[in-house]
């Protein structure tokens, strides 16, 4: 499959200014902007990085460039949520989608391991889609766990947090320049572990309608906190209550985004 990906990248590089993918060197693998003339033997698929975030960064920096990105299912879902929030310009981005293996899907508890490219013009899918993996067992059994136990579980987990902000920094759908987690109004500076449960509930609340379950936060967490259990539960609730699925449809605006015009129509307030 890797040969097929490299061939596709070589073909697309004749039309595009550059393609974001992983490059492996003797130091290790990391995101890279491949351009014509680069050695595509160095292009690899592992370990995973949020390449959608790199693509966003480069689109903002190179405003006229037409770029490509090698993307897994979660990357594409993240691209969708970022596009809705003006962090990705879909007209300047070609996606080379790559399916994950069953083992990778199981590791990530991923329900949708193949990228959905219906809404990305000029894109290609490489690999055979595999079925979704079962959810994290804690998520599956969560409804049966009594409230007191849930509280004790999260308290024990979040006490390990040393506030590196890594879960935020790596997250493809975290992009605000001013972050509530750094605002002394909400999170007391200099306190370790951060306020329980405020710090992590702010993050979870901001991930409502955004988190695409890529698991990057969990992999970056030095304290091994199962962050995506919380975000998966939030995503489930949002799907059940308002039918919104992050990453599914680029044309469906997030429910918490409202325009002033909407507000005027809905509001009964007397000013």
């Amino acid at each position, binding site marked *: 499959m890797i040969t097929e990906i490299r061939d596709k990248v070589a073909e697309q590089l004749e039309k595009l200014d550059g393609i974001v993918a992983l490059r492996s060197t003797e130091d*290790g693998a990391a995101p890279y*902007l491949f*351009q014509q003339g680069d050695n595509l033997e160095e292009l690899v698929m*592992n370990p995973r990085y949020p390449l959608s975030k790199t693509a966003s*960064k*480069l689109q903002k920096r190179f405003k006229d460039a037409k770029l490509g990105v090698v993307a897994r299912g979660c990357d594409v879902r993240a691209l969708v949520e970022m596009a809705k929030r003006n962090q990705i310009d879909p007209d300047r981005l070609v996606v080379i989608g790559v399916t994950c293996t069953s083992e990778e899907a199981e590791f990530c508890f991923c329900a949708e391991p193949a990228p959905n490219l219906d809404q990305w013009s000029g894109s290609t899918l490489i690999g055979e889609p595999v079925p979704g993996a079962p959810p994290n067992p804690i998520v599956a059994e969560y409804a049966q766990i009594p409230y007191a136990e849930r509280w004790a579980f999260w308290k024990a987990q979040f006490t390990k947090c040393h506030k590196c902000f890594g879960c935020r*920094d790596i997250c493809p759908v975290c992009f605000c320049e001013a972050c509530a987690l750094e605002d002394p109004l909400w999170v007391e500076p200099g306190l370790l572990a951060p306020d329980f449960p405020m710090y992590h509930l702010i993050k979870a609340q901001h991930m409502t309608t955004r988190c695409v379950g890529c698991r990057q936060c969990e992999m970056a967490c030095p304290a091994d906190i199962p962050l995506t259990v919380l975000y998966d539960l939030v995503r489930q609730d949002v799907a059940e209550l308002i039918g919104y699925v992050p990453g599914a449809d680029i044309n469906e605006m997030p429910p918490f985004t409202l325009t002033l015009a909407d507000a005027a129509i809905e509001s009964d307030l007397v000013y």
Partner: protein
Amino acid sequence: MDYKNIQTICPYCGCGCALNLEVIDGEIVGVLPANDHPVSQGSLCIKGWNAHAFVGHEDRLKKPLIRKNGQLEEVSWNEALKLVAKNLGSIQKKHGADSIGVLTSAKCTNEENYLLQKFARAVIGTNNVDHCARL
């Protein structure tokens, strides 16, 4: 148009976490963890995540400064080292070697730290040696 990551070791403490410096057109713009590195295994602490911030910072000192008539002035390394040597010498003579302490740094190499403790013990004559990770 150029974007790459350069892997290096975090300068902030002695753990030896690897990190990737994100470089766009020669400018360091951010940090990514090194996901396949055996020491840090894709994680970083808050210092590592921000290890790029001082590189191009406007407050960063590029030349030694000496306060002359109440004003900090840029001087050559030679002049700065001479002044330090002269003042350390006179403090040592007047108050004894143990009135001086030496702070080393996790940002230095092992060899540089070795030299500094050697300097403290053999040249100044004190065992007062400590380092920034305990500050």
